[in-house]
């Protein structure tokens, strides 16, 4: 496990170094979005892919992190790493609370409840003037950071760190007893209980972890975007992408969301610039529906099938 962490950190350092070499700030702005999606997709997959409980409200947890930052920033500005911890904690607590209320019910009810949560939170935020309400909130960010340079590079670095944390967590879970437990919940919850798996407790762990990671991804967002509106924080593209990226990449392994996020994230960056953002979302939606019907195990699944066929 420590080896994996070392490799990841090395890879992250390479990515950062490579981006600096290119010397164009746009790489950092676009790259930040892709990295953000890696975290969101990985976080979603811990709950959705590993335990089989679908979360339609990723935007809610993401926005909670973002708005926690706005709230704290208005009260007393803190360094971003601390804000990330706070955003993650807030989202984790909400994830736990919502899980506690709804995870005893069937997966379908949980999924609907996550949708409900997103709308309720958005309505609350829209009506809360302290964090800007529907008018939005401005976050003034510094231009430069000591030792690193342009501010966007600092944000990029932070998001890289979050990617390392998310991927390490996901892979760590996969290979642990917890991972077995999650898989049994996904495969057959009733049988899992009969084998002694404390399903509610494990589901709560998954929801809390997943929500927490999403909140951490959302915490730096106001600094990235400068002007935060509820419609952008709670945007539908977060919900769709958090689901589409793992489903297309493959839900059974930590590699799936990574592949899905890099592929779809880059695709969308290109499409938004060349075509339009609406068409770009349409493509994501169609890909989601297509993959779910034709290749339910995603790209990872297709590769695994190909390998298994060849070894026979």
């Amino acid at each position, binding site marked *: 496990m420590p080896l994996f962490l070392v490799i990841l950190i090395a890879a992250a350092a390479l990515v950062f170094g490579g981006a600096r070499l290119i010397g164009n700030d746009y790489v950092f702005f676009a790259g930040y979005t892709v990295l953000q999606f890696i975290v969101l997709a990985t976080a979603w997959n811990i709950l959705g892919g590993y335990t089989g409980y679908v979360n339609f409200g990723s935007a809610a947890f993401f926005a909670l992190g973002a708005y926690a930052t706005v709230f704290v920033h208005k009260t007393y500005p803190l360094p971003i790493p601390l804000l990330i911890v706070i955003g993650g904690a807030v989202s984790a607590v909400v994830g736990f609370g919502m899980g506690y209320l709804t995870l005893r019910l069937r997966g379908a009810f949980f999924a609907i409840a996550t949708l409900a949560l997103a709308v309720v939170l958005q309505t609350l935020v829209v009506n809360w003037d302290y964090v800007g309400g529907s008018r939005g909130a401005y976050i003034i960010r510094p231009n430069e950071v000591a030792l690193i340079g342009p501010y966007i590079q600092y944000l990029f670095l932070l998001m890289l760190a979050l990617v390392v944390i998310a991927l390490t967590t996901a892979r760590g879970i996969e290979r642990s*007893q917890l991972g*077995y*437990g999650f*898989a*049994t919940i*996904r*495969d*057959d919850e*009733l*049988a*899992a*209980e*009969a*084998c*002694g*798996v*404390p*399903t*509610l407790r494990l589901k709560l762990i998954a929801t809390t972890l997943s929500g927490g990671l999403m909140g951490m991804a959302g915490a730096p967002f106001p600094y990235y975007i400068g002007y935060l509106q509820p419609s952008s924080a709670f945007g539908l593209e977060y919900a769709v992408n958090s689901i589409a990226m793992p489903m297309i990449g493959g839900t*059974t392994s930590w590699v799936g969301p990574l592949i899905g996020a890099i592929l779809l994230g880059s695709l969308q960056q290109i499409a938004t610039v060349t075509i339009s953002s609406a068409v770009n979302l349409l493509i994501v939606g169609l890909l989601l529906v297509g993959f779910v019907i034709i290749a339910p195990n995603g790209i990872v699944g297709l590769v695994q099938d190909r390998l298994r066929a060849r070894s026979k």
Partner: protein
Amino acid sequence: MPLLEVSRLSKRFGGFVALDGIDLAVAAGERVGLIGPNGSGKSTLVNCVCGTLANATGTVRFDGAEMDGLTTHERTRRGIARSFQLPRPFATLTVADNLRVPLLYTVNARSGPTLTPAELDARCAELLALVGLGDKATRLPRDLTQVEMRKLELARAMAADPKLLMADESMAGLSHSEVDDIVTLLVRLNERGITIVLIEHIMRAVMKFSQRLVVLVSGKKIADGKPDVVIRDPEVERAYIGQ
């Protein structure tokens, strides 16, 4: 004191009464057969004892303790195991890993020494050999035959190291010799000290296996005693011929 004591257990689904005041006592080490026509409440009884179904009236006492309010996994950890009527293996885990789950989450979760990874592997291998699936350890459940899946189902229940095993229709659709295999296996398990309640339709197996026979019809217990006596009870005959 009986190992399992069910008192006045009733369960309704809306207007439908699935169980109506069932009293059942099972002594430690017994081999009990539970029979009855389709829809008589046998599986419902198992589900209520194991905690899969809630909101039943009456009491279930196991090993001297009241079970009401305990979740299924808590009951499993106390020593009640069950196999499912339709096998429910963990489809994405290998056969061996299917057995590892109850070892990790039940046996290791109990107080007392936890099994080391080496001991876990050994226990898996032992259980697989016991049911004759030793060479299928690394396969996925979907590669197994019907019989093999039922054996896996039983092995998985056994992996939880239970005091009481409720085997729900483990033999449906099996051939003559396959049924004999399972009965032999169950008797062997019982000789190791595990109390077994066998829910079955296959009369030959039930008669061969049971020391005591209980008959359920429309949610009520209509007979409870020695198998050869119960089977000649006119009310039992009527229940079966009348269906």
